[in-house]
């Protein structure tokens, strides 16, 4: 498969992620969509790394994975904490502050 | 070497020191503040003597000139310099501040901060008059604004916040435009100097270099650049003076500020605007100023007559005086932009005179407001019999303000108008016409307060019934008398001032004409 196939795939995944962020109200799903975006980029990196014959891309992938894991930890902790206090984690309910 | 710095920084440091006084020691705070202002006045008198001993010009390196490297790469230096024009205005400021602090003993709330702000205000104004680097000038220009804002907004009358806001916004718009001008002038001067062959010429904000008085790096700005830069500078000064139609802040500010602050605003601060025109706009942009001068003159004349007419029907004491102040400043501007020796000397002389006279008028308006609690003219009347001394002092100031020959304002107004007349007959005649409405509204003002029969209703009559209105106290007399003496003295012997002003004006005119010839 040519490089462009990987890149198009990656772009599609990324777009799905973006749309997910925009249309879902549950922070867990939104969070998953963001993970999808990150992983879409990972796909690009891996493909590029291979086609460019460069190690940079793979290093990126490792780091992104690590970061994504950390984000999961933090994100879930936040969601749990909010749930404990409000018993509701709908992001559209979170607009005390505006204007 | 540090004389000028000492003059500028003394009130500032004194004001800061004042903040460490215990809040309850109101009397000590007041006396200390007055003492500081008086010491500052002595310092300035020392400066006067020093200047008179060895007359110096603006950039001559003498002990009345300081220059410390601050950041030469950006042309920023801590440079102070002075000539006769600065000298008289510095003296005026120091005098008025001392007087106004003396007149502020009635301020009861937050005395400490009030006094500190007054002293800071003084520092700012002195700095403006003495700075000879544009960056420094701008710093002092803004340092002047902040205390004025607080003094007006915190200790003022009912609509003080609105007035303070308007004041600051108007002034800031102007001064920010000036900031643009300041940043740009150094750059364009550098470009011009490099184009003229000075390859190693840097960005500079040193007034002496911008005026091409130094041996190297002569850069002459072309006409269009000059005009744009001039407009930027003029914006700040026109608001401060104020020229109409940029004066809308003034009636509010002057009427809402506490009287001593108004006296200082009108007496000293408004002069910084004219000074800016004289010290910066005219020498820096000699060509453009010739283009712009007719418009400024027209604005000045319109302002003179317009505000005089407005003053006729004002019902608020301090607003009336405010409009009268704009009208008189128009005369000053008219004299300045006549570009004649008489007009410019008269204009500087009139700045001093106007400062003194307006200060007395506003202080007296403040005394009256303190006694009666009202500023409405209709409430007053027939007070001369009750408070003769106050009436006399007010009458003298009113006469001075309307330009009675023999008193101080006449000298400056006469010279200004003479210069204006020589430059442009129509404008001169129209400007001179102001004496008629001026006499009209000032007498209406005086008569409305002091002559006739007391009003039968309103705050004044209530006060009269309650226990009478007292004549000037000794303290108030002590505050007013020095200014009254000056009103007479300058009227009789203006040569004392013109002797100082005239040579400096001649220098400015020389810059103007030599640059124009080029």
């Amino acid at each position, binding site marked *: 498969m040519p490089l462009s196939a990987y890149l198009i795939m990656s772009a599609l995944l990324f777009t799905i992620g973006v749309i997910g962020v925009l*249309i879902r109200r549950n922070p867990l799903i939104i969070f998953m969509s963001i993970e999808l975006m990150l992983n879409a980029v990972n796909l690009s990196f891996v493909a590029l790394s291979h086609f460019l014959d460069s190690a940079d891309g793979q290093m990126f992938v490792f780091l992104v994975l690590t970061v994504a894991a950390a984000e999961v930890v933090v994100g879930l902790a936040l969601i749990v904490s909010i749930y404990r206090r409000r018993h509701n984690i709908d992001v559209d309910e979170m607009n005390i502050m505006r204007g | 070497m540090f004389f000028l710095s000492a003059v500028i920084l003394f009130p500032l440091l004194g004001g800061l020191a004042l903040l460490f006084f215990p809040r309850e020691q109101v009397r000590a705070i007041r006396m200390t503040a007055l003492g500081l202002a008086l010491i500052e006045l002595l310092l300035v008198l020392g400066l006067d003597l020093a200047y008179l001993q060895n007359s110096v010009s603006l950039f001559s390196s003498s002990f009345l000139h300081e220059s410390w490297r601050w950041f030469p790469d950006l042309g920023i230096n801590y440079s102070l310099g002075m000539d006769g024009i600065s000298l008289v205005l510095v003296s005026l400021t120091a005098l008025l501040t001392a007087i106004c602090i003396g007149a502020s003993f009635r301020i009861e709330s937050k005395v400490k901060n009030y006094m500190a702000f007054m002293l800071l205000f003084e520092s700012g104004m002195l700095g403006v008059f003495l700075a000879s680097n544009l960056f420094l000038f701008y710093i002092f220009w803004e340092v002047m604004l902040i205390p004025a804002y607080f003094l007006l907004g915190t200790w003022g009358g009912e609509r003080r916040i609105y007035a303070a806001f308007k004041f600051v916004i108007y002034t800031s718009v102007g001064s920010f435009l000036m900031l643009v001008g300041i940043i740009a002038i150094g750059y364009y001067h550098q470009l011009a100097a490099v184009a003229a062959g000075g390859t190693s010429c840097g960005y500079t904000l040193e007034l002496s270099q911008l005026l091409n008085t130094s041996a190297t790096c002569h850069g002459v700005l072309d006409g269009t650049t000059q005009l744009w830069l001039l407009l930027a500078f003029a914006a700040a000064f026109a608001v401060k003076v104020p020229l109409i139609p940029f004066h809308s802040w003034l009636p509010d500010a002057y009427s809402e500020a506490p009287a001593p602050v108004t006296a200082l605003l009108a007496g000293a601060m408004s002069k910084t605007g004219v000074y800016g025109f004289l010290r910066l706009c005219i020498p820096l942009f000699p060509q453009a100023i010739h283009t712009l001068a007719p418009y400024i003159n027209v604005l000045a004349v319109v302002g003179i007559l*317009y505000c005089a007419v407005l003053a006729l*029907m004002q019902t608020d004491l301090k607003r009336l005086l405010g409009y009268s102040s704009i009208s008189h400043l128009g005369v000053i501007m008219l004299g300045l932009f006549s570009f004649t020796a008489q007009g410019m000397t008269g204009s500087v002389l009139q700045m001093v005179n106007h400062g003194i006279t307006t200060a007395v008028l506003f202080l007296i308006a403040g005394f009256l407001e303190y006694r009666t609690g009202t500023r409405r003219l209709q409430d007053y009347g027939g007070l001369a019999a009750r408070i003769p001394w106050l009436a006399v002092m007010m009458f003298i100031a009113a006469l001075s303000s309307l330009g009675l020959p*023999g008193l101080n304002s006449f000298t400056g107004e006469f010279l200004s108008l003479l210069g204006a007349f020589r430059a442009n007959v129509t404008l*001169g005649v129209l400007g001179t016409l102001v004496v008629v409405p*001026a006499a009209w509204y000032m007498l209406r003002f005086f008569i409305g307060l002091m002559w006739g*029969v007391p009003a039968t209703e309103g705050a004044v009559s209530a006060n009269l019934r309650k226990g009478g209105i007292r004549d000037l106290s000794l303290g108030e007399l002590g505050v007013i008398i020095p200014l009254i003496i000056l009103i007479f003295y300058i009227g009789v012997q203006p040569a004392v001032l013109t002797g100082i002003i005239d040579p400096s004006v001649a220098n400015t005119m020389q810059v103007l004409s030599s640059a124009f010839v080029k």
Partner: protein
Amino acid sequence: MTNLSLWVLLLPLLGFIILGLAGRFMPRTAILAVGWGACGLAFLCAAISFFSMLATPAAQRTSDQVVYHWISAGTFSLDFGLLLDPLSMTMLLVVTGVGLLIHIYSAGYMADDPSFWRFFAYLNFFIFAMVMLVIANNFLFLLVGWGLVGLASYLLIGFWYQRRSAVAAAQKAFVINVIGDFGLMLAIFLIFQGAGRLDYAGVLTHTFPAATATAIALLLFVACAAKSAQLPLYMWLPDAMEGPTPVSALIHAATMVTAGVYLVARAYPLFEQSPAALAVVAGIGGATALFAATIALFQLDIKRVLAYSTISQLGYMFMAEGVHNYSAGIFHLVTHAFFKALLFLGAGAVIHALAGEQDMRKMGGLWGRLRVTGLTFLIASLAISGIIPFAGFWSKDEILGSVLAYGNQTGNVWYYILWAIGILTAGMTAFYMFRLFFGIFAGDYRGASVAVNDNTNGDVEEQEAAAAGHHHAGPVRYNSIHDVAPVMSIPLIILAILSVIGGFIGSMALFGLPNWSPLANFLPAAMHNHAAEGSLTLEWISTGLSLLAGVLGIGMAWRLYGKGFAFKQNSNPLYQLVFHKYYVDEILNAVLIIPVLALSRTLSRYLEGDVLDGGSRGISTLFRGTSTFMRRVQTGYMRNYALGILLGVVVIIVYYAVRG
């Protein structure tokens, strides 16, 4: 000699300062000592200077002494100096002399006033200012004096400052005088522009271009018209009668109002350069003389009659100056000072005796009670009516003679008309003066019985006046009217003597004494040798007709009012027009004052309030509104924010895609 002239200036100033600062605490005798002393010593100094001047040869009589350097600005440099020459000497003598008499008189007149000290302080200040005006050696200090006498006049008109009418009159006087100052300032600007200096010595020998000279002369005359109450700036003078009567005598009859005459005489070289301006001077003078005389015919307030008479007489003086006969103008100034001061002081004595009554309808029959006053008043009336041999005859005769001679010389018919006006005015003068005299002194006393519908003083004003503790305390019974005390009658007598003999300092050429003309000889020859020399026949025609007019006027007055004055309503529109002083005040009010005030109010409300202040508010509202609107973007919803970010992304990517 010059040192003394400085003292003439400084002594009254000193008196003013002492009285002004300490007068409040001084006993009356001390006040009088200072007040009289200052003026008396000034007169003494002036007199000594005068005699020493007489002792010097005519060519060396001018002394120009610099006192100090006043100001310098560029090429403009000015010293304060004293110019003592015959002209200023004459003025000094009149000012200090008449001034002294009025100082003395005032001690009696103002005896009951609580502000006694203030009055003398002001009088001394006036003397100082007037001396400054006449003794200054340059136009600028002339202007200083000019302004200061205006101030003195203001203070003295408004002396009873609790009376609304007095206050209004004072303000009016000052503002109109400022119009004059305006003219004078412009004249000075022009003079400086043309001559480069302002001292008389330099300016009066300088030749200006014709147009400039005319402009200068006319502007100077604007000042003169304002100060000397000529058309169209005369309105303040009748109102100025609100001041105490000695003030009217001193300032508004004898001295200050003649400053204009002095100025024209002083600046005659400038006027000589501009025939047009002189024609204006003569024309305005004649017109004013007639105009004011007509108003004086029907006035009821005795001081107002005198005021209009003063305006009319000043018109004569300008008429003389308009035909180049400056010394005749000065001559009439001097004699007028005597008899008009006398008339005012006499009127003052009457008013004093009647406790403040000024209305002719409430007088009458006072000859029996006020013998000295009546006699001196009669002398003054005869003098002003131009009856030989009283002072007025000589001076008026000289003026009319010069006008006729000038008309004859130039052949200009306007000067004949001017002369005719002069003769007519002379007759009217005689008429209204004797109407006044008979109204006061002849017939029966009308004060206690007649309740006249008073249309000059309203009730309100009387209440205010009562508050001032003066003026019109109610009718006085005839038997309790007493003639004035010596302190007041002695000045009357001295002035009466002067009114009788004062004319003899003028020319006696008419009576075959061609060399007898002390005043004209004393004044510089240039001040009258521009005047036309008429033949003796012409002189006699003029003299005879003016005398005849005077006698006719007196005769008519005798026929109408010899048995006492009786006021009759008259609905004749012409009478009403004149009676109401041609409605000038009303017209002025409607045409100038009210529109200006309305303009002020309108501008203040709409332009200042709505446009400028409203504009500032509007801009601030605009920004706040924009801000409030933009805040709506900030919904608080996380997904909206994300959408915003995405939009930004799309815009940027589209931009690059399109561009790239």
